[in-house]
């Protein structure tokens, strides 16, 4: 198990919320420095799969699982594994922009401060690089002390991306990051995601086939908790092998 190939591998993962069986025996891996799209109609378990990867499902008391998720070859649900270290290494961007109700600067420095960065200059540098990576620096560099919730929706979401980048995680989870935004902001963030691919392993949940086609390298198609197809995006979209995938791509289900 120690000579792992990829940052994240999922083996035979099944999950339940109470009695409800959400994910059914999922096995997949996420290639480094690529964008993997998780597609599927709403309610198929896309978000649950994503949240299993950084153990955010643990917040729900009735959550149960079997199977294993490996991060760099270690079982993240294993007894000796620190969930806080895990989440430091796996960043997450949510569907709705959720900046903390504090200044732009404090939003970015929150993560690094938690993990022991105290030096003001270093923090300042982190703020600048994170915001630059998220293509937000030019817009907010003069208002770093303004409350973050005053930014526009698209800016807020880019701030959330910058916040996730602030602790420099190798993996980024994105849960439909543009679905709550207007088309112009959405395009901007899509471009940004493609750019980030060079430095990060990105796992993107989307129910938008076009978006998956535009940005992702490989795709997983989930339907009612089952992993129907898992391959290169181009292959899946051009020649789906399963009738359910085809139905989803052509818009008959979803």
């Amino acid at each position, binding site marked *: 198990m120690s000579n792992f190939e990829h940052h994240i591998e999922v083996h035979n993962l099944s999950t339940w919320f109470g009695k409800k069986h959400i994910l059914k025996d999922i096995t997949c891996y996420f290639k480094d420095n690529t964008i993997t799209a998780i597609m599927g109609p709403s309610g198929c378990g896309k978000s649950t799969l994503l949240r299993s990867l*950084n153990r*955010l499902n643990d*917040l729900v*008391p009735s959550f149960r699982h079997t199977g294993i998720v490996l991060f760099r070859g270690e079982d993240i649900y294993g007894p000796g594994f620190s969930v*806080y*270290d*895990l*989440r*430091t*290494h*796996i*960043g*997450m961007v*949510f569907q*709705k922009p*959720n900046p*903390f*109700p*504090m200044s732009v600067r404090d939003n970015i420095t*929150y*993560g690094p401060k*938690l*993990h022991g960065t105290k030096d003001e200059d270093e923090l300042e540098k982190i703020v600048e690089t994170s915001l630059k990576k998220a293509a937000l620096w030019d817009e907010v560099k003069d208002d770093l002390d*303004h*409350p*973050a*919730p*005053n930014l526009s929706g698209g800016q807020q979401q880019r701030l*959330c991306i910058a*916040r*996730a980048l*602030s*602790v420099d995680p190798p993996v980024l*989870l994105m849960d439909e990051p543009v679905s709550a935004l207007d088309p112009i902001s959405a395009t901007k963030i899509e471009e940004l995601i493609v750019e980030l691919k060079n430095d990060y392993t990105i796992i993107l949940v989307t129910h938008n086939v076009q978006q998956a086609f535009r940005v992702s390298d490989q795709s997983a198609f989930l339907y009612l908790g089952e992993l129907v197809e898992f391959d290169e995006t181009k292959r899946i979209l051009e020649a789906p092998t399963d009738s359910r995938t085809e139905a989803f791509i052509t818009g008959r289900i979803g």
Partner: protein
Amino acid sequence: MTEESSSNPLNQIAVKITQSLKQFKDSDKPGRIDSLGRFGLFIPALASTLIIILILAFLWFESVPIFIDPVGGPGIIVSPTWDPNRDLYGIGIFIVGSLICTGIAIGLAVPLGIGGAIFLSEFCPMQLRQPIKMIIEMMAAIPSIVYGLWAYIVLVPIIKYNIAPLANSTTNGLSVLAGGIILAIMLLPTIVTISNDALQTVPMSLREASLALGATQSETSRKIVLSAALPGVGAAVVLSLGRAVGETMAVLMVTGNSLQIPYSLFDPTYVMTSIITNQLGYAFVFPLWRSALFAVGLVLLIMSMCFTITAKLFIRWGMKTRGYI
């Protein structure tokens, strides 16, 4: 309506009245009921405003004599000697007593109450949350005289026999400490309930964002949830300050009511609410004495108004710096 008449506020009101009277005459029966009802409801709506004005006016006029009399004057607010038999009406001692008791109570109740609210909102097992909330709401409903009875019968002896000897001091138990503790117990339900409500309004997504950055649950609750809910929590603290200063019966029964500045936790004291309760009954035939007691009431009233206003301003400030409004 001419330029002239519209500029004069009195004329404006007159025009408004004649207009509505005309409207009233022109309308049909349901329409008339409507406008009559509207007027009939307007009067009760002003009741609270009217009562505030009356309270302010009466306390002011009742306390004017002591403020203008040569034996009194505005200096009584800082003067520490209260002896109506010798025409000494310093009420400073009561203000100090109230502030000390309030300080002890707040010092005990605020950390405890906010901690309890965080536990209730963030970490409490689901099955326990509702029962605990219910008990705390019941605690808020218990009359202050009942708390006073318990403190007088149980707490005061405990302080006398168990706590004071620990500090090598002797006391009869009637002390600022007893007042502070019973006040803290009475403030806790307010602080916990309001703070808990404020913490619950913080969206789940903020907690998730913090946890996803690798924060522990306790770090999230302190640095994100508490910080996001700070306007509400701060308002809870300020409002409870007001309640502490104005609390009457329980404090009256356990602080000893002795005209001295307390130098230790075990010394008795005399608070503002107690002096009014104890002496207004005898004093009302002596104009200056009575007036001085109303001056204490006026100070209390102004303090409570300040606390209410501060709480409101604090909420506004907090919402602004957090970008909520």
